[in-house]
């Protein structure tokens, strides 16, 4: 390898990256945007749910339960009225459900047999089950406090006391920030690299490059190394913003984070290189990178959806999604701390995928020249 030649080519790649505003956008603006969105917008933690209330009884018991709903931090009693009016509001999506306190509520409450009706908007199943759970909870608490007022003990025979390790407040940004890092690195690895190399093929400058005395290994190195550092830089932006602005803990070591990210970038870049050498067309390369890189990283990596709950054939598919091996490591290094036995296994798998992709791209490129 000729060091000067290598450096000249490397410098050419860096200039090309620095000159294109779109590269800058993907590598620096997108991570910032994603972290802000995951920090502010996509809290999966359900806040106050907007509900309607139909109070059909004026007994003391009924008004006291209605007041409990109005004062609850989990509900925003947005609208009151008849069940027909509230029903229309649910259809329009103005409220997510409503509570009916029926006419005989006060009478039934004397014997403890009172009941309420809750209607939820099943079109939003998450909010609906939240609503079901919290209305039941509120009603039970209300009944317990009234029983206590009358000097009766009221406690369920068995109660569950959940304790959430690593994330006692259940802040969803704790797992969204590692997810954002995975997405950004996938974008830079497979999409950006894929596009850049495909463009060289499309414009015919690839043949020119291959005609230079550069060896194949040198060629791949200069193509890929700048994007490797770009990927690490965006990872760092995500990590720093997540920790400083959004209070995501960082309980592992920086060394571990660097090792994990580097190991993931190898298959990501290899995938981009392979797609572009195999397709030689920017549109086709970008679509395939989207389908095989970005979307699986989002949907099949266990970042948003539990892999164990997926059908068997999809579970089998997730084993070839590199991001699957990254997500648990990132979640661990941020919220739990270093766990090297877990890191090493996953990193080895990632490097294996990387080797496969690079070998495939070498083969495809060689064949093209021949």
């Amino acid at each position, binding site marked *: 390898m000729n060091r000067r030649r290598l450096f000249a080519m490397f410098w050419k790649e860096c200039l090309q990256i620095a000159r*294109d*505003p*779109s590269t800058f*956008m*993907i590598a620096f603006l*997108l991570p910032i*945007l*994603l972290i802000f*969105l995951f920090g*502010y*917008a996509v*809290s*999966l933690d*359900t*806040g106050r749910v907007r509900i309607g209330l139909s109070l059909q009884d004026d007994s003391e018991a009924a008004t006291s339960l209605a007041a409990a709903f109005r004062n609850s931090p989990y509900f925003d009693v947005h609208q009151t009225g008849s069940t027909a009016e509230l029903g229309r509001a*649910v*259809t*329009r*999506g103005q409220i997510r459900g409503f509570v009916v306190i029926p006419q005989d509520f006060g009478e039934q409450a004397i014997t403890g*047999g009172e*009941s309420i*009706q*809750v209607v*939820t908007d*099943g*079109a939003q*199943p998450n*909010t*609906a*089950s939240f609503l079901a759970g919290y*209305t*039941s909870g509120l*009603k039970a608490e209300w009944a317990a406090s009234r029983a206590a007022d009358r000097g009766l003990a009221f406690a369920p*025979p*068995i*109660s*569950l*006391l*959940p304790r*959430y390790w690593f*994330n*006692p407040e259940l802040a*969803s940004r704790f797992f969204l920030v590692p997810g954002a890092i995975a997405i950004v690195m996938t974008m830079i690895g497979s*999409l950006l690299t894929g*596009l850049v190399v495909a463009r060289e093929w499309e414009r015919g400058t690839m043949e020119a490059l291959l005609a230079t005395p550069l060896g194949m290994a040198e060629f791949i190195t200069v193509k890929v190394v700048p994007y490797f550092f770009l990927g690490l830089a965006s990872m760092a932006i995500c990590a720093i913003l997540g920790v400083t602005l959004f209070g995501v803990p960082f309980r592992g070591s920086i060394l571990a984070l660097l090792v994990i990210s580097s190991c993931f970038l190898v298959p990501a870049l290899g995938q981009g290189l392979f797609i572009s050498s195999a397709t030689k*067309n920017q*549109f*086709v390369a970008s*679509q*395939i990178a989207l389908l095989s890189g970005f979307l699986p990283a989002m*949907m099949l990596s266990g970042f*948003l959806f*539990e892999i*164990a*709950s997926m059908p068997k054939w*999809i579970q089998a*598919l997730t084993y070839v999604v590199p991001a699957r091996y990254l997500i*648990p490591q990132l*979640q*661990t290094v941020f919220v739990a701390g270093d766990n090297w036995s877990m890191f090493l296994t996953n990193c080895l798998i990632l490097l294996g995928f990387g080797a496969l992709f690079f070998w495939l791209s070498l083969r495809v490129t060689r064949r093209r020249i021949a």
Partner: protein
Amino acid sequence: MIDSLLSPRLLAIIVKEFWAALRDPRSRLLLFLPPLMQLVLFSTAATLEIKKVTLGVLDMDGGAASREFTNQLAGSPNVKRLVWLTSNEHLANAIDNQSVLGVLVFDASFSRDVAAGRSATVQFVLDGRRSNAAQIVSSYISQIAANTGAALRPAVRSDNGVRITNWFNPNLDYQWFIMPALVVQISALSALSVTSQSVARERELGTFDQLMVSPLQNWEIVLGKLVPPFVIGLFNGTVFLAIVPLVFGVPYTGSIGLFFLATAAGLFSILGIGMLLSTIARTQQQAFLGMFSIVPPMILLSGFASPIDNMPGWLQVIAMANPLTHFNVIMEGLFLKAMPFSDMMASIWPLLLSGVVTLALAIQQFRARME
């Protein structure tokens, strides 16, 4: 204008654009196959139900009550396997390595407490790294705790006097929610990826100048470029409309005519964004990367990933300006809620407005680039 709408010139550019989009067999495949694949793959993968969870049990009690509880656990359809742990150290290891999502801990006095009529507590230690899944599992298990309690002490009123009815989706099937949303996301993604490259590609290849010296008007060029992705989008929409109820059993309760009206309005708004992007970009790479920078925020701020009500006020304003938000409301309404035309209009006009504004900007940008 009416005359020129029917002019052979406009027809010629539309035919040319269809050729450009459909000529290459690989690109042609990419226009129709991936949307279908995504629908099938992601609708089955995207589930928030936790069906087969592995849990640990640390039973320091070993009495009748804890046995009853674990029997109920093992019989639950949500639990795949129970792992028996023997010490706190064992417990910490199992959670650290993610071999279990959570561990139920029964104190030595658990069965005695239940027998004596005291309120007995089960500790449930969960992996907060996967806080979402942990929360869902915790709600399943608290239901099992209540059932076990009722079985062990039948005197206590087991129903809490809350009767729940879920409208539009009685079993709260997550797929019923995800399908209409996926129809929106996938249509948007595929329409954007075709439109955003249309002008940028001509510019990169140098054929843009040829187009400019032709007798075609600016708006004719833009319209010609919009027709093929619009038709392709409508075609894919029709396929979705057939597949979602027939293959996945998600009901379609609205009117068929309204579906096409909604899809047309939704596509119009998205094509506007794609065209604007394409006229701003100098190269295909810029157009693609621009698209990939706006798609994640558009999806995240559409009310699909998380309810808009939970966002801070200024983000709610941005979310309301996002065409996908309105597109989502309509599709959800048409599929599940038999949304009538009068309710739909409230979400149609933002789509049309967004399309008109972005297209006007795109044509202006086009003119600016020419001079």
